[in-house]
């Protein structure tokens, strides 16, 4: 427990927070990686996932891809891209995106599939065009599931970004590996705690966003309120 106390002291030391490689800068860097990777991954995965969910085409491939991707070892992808793309952010960022795409893709089409088929059938029978079904029904009703996928993707990237310091990227993982190399256990443990806090905060933010994404009519249905 003494070690834990020293780690907390390391985190709280103001001298460690400032400067270009201070905790503040590294945290922002870590968060920046995460947001950038999730945005890029979403730009790729959401249109494909919506297309799969809306048309039902390519579903088998999407399921197989997102299932197999769970087996991909993050460290393996990270070292592979680093070796192929060299020093710099391109390697790690490519790895982050590869690892973030499957859960967003799966959530995008799963969200559409969770929409009651009878609702869509009725809407088409009222004269909704395909685009109107997509934007007015499938997108809003599938949004909560999609936000859940973005949440998993963000957590995946936060974890992988910690590892990325191993292949030369920035972020909070820097301290972790520096501490490992110099046998500075307080630094190693302190930075680990910081990553955990960052992940939990991000998780909480996405949980709130997920709740906000549920349309009101569906919220009342879940509460089981009846007239």
């Amino acid at each position, binding site marked *: 427990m003494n070690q834990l106390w020293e780690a907390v002291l390391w985190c709280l030391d103001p001298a460690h927070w400032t400067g270009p490689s201070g905790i503040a800068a590294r945290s922002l860097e870590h968060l920046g990686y995460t947001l950038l990777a999730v945005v890029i991954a979403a730009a790729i995965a959401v249109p494909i996932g919506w297309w799969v969910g809306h048309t039902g085409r390519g579903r088998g491939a999407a399921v197989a891809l997102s299932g197999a991707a769970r087996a991909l070892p993050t460290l393996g992808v990270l070292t592979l891209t680093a070796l192929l793309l060299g020093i710099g952010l391109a390697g790690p960022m490519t790895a982050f995106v590869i690892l973030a795409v499957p859960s967003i893709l799966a959530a995008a089409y799963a969200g559409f599939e969770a929409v*009651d088929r*009878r*609702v869509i*059938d*009725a*809407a*088409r*029978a*009222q*004269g*909704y*065009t395909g685009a*109107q079904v997509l934007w007015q*029904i499938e997108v*809003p*009703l599938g949004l909560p599931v999609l936000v859940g996928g973005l949440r998993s993707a963000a957590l995946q990237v936060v974890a992988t970004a910690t590892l990325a310091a191993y292949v030369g990227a920035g972020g909070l993982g820097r301290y972790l590996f520096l501490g490992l190399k110099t046998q500075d256990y307080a630094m190693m443990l302190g930075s680990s705690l910081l990553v955990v806090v960052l992940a939990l905060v991000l998780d909480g933010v996405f949980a709130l966003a997920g709740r906000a994404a549920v*349309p*009101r*009519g*569906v919220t*009342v*249905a879940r509460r089981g*309120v*009846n*007239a």
Partner: protein
Amino acid sequence: MISYRSVTKRFADGTVAVQDFSLDVPRGTLTVLAGSSGCGKTTLMRMVNRMVDPSSGQVLVDGEDVAGRDPVALRRRIGYVMQNSGLLPHRTVAQNIATVPRLNGVDRRAARRRTGEMMELVGLDAKLADRYPAQLSGGQQQRVGVARGLAADPDILLMDEPFGAVDPLVRSELQRQLRQLHGQIGTTILFVTHDMDEALALGDQIVLLRAGADIAQQGTPREFVAEPANDFVRTFLGLDRGQRTLHRERAADGSIVVVDAHGRPAGVLAEPDGRPDDGAHPGAAADGGPRPGIQDAPGA
């Protein structure tokens, strides 16, 4: 109004849902397509608004083949009510009813006014306008479904087992109101059901289908009960089991109870002059609604 000309529907997996089907649905009538599940009745109905396209043959609306019409535009001219209402869960009652007028570009205020009229027409309390579907009872949801189907003032209303999922008491009330509504607005209604009591209670014309949409009998409710065309019709109506062969019996309090061949009470006979003759609905005595006085019937 609606005409089927030698329509056949073969699905991709090879099953033939409809085989060489022809029928005329006269303007302003309420025609019931009845039959067991899988007989092709829903497929036939969905051909009218091009939710299903026939493999061969034609479906005409006002003498024009629907195959030449844009499906989206066509559907906005035809009301559609389905089982479990199919309401949008994330839209309020008012927004759901205003769906088609809004799709047709009616402005918000006019749509809102129309919504109010529709809710009154189908007997919905105006206070429910801002509720979500999940906050309504099954019967209320179906009323919203009917209001939505009628909101754009369509010439044709398609109803696919709309009252199948509500309890019997509410169902018979909804059926009674639908009859009344039909008399009021005169829309051509095509109604699909597997429930023969419902068909007898609602239809001006009933078309009873066997598998492959083969017409077993077509006629008025009275013709069905008085002159069933064959054994299939008799079985479907329950005539073979004596369910519609009714006899009078005198109950303890002096009223006359009507019982079927098994002695099960079907209703109480009204005074000969106490009840207006509802000639169009001979099946009404046997409908699934409340049966007052059955407790007093002997042998019950």
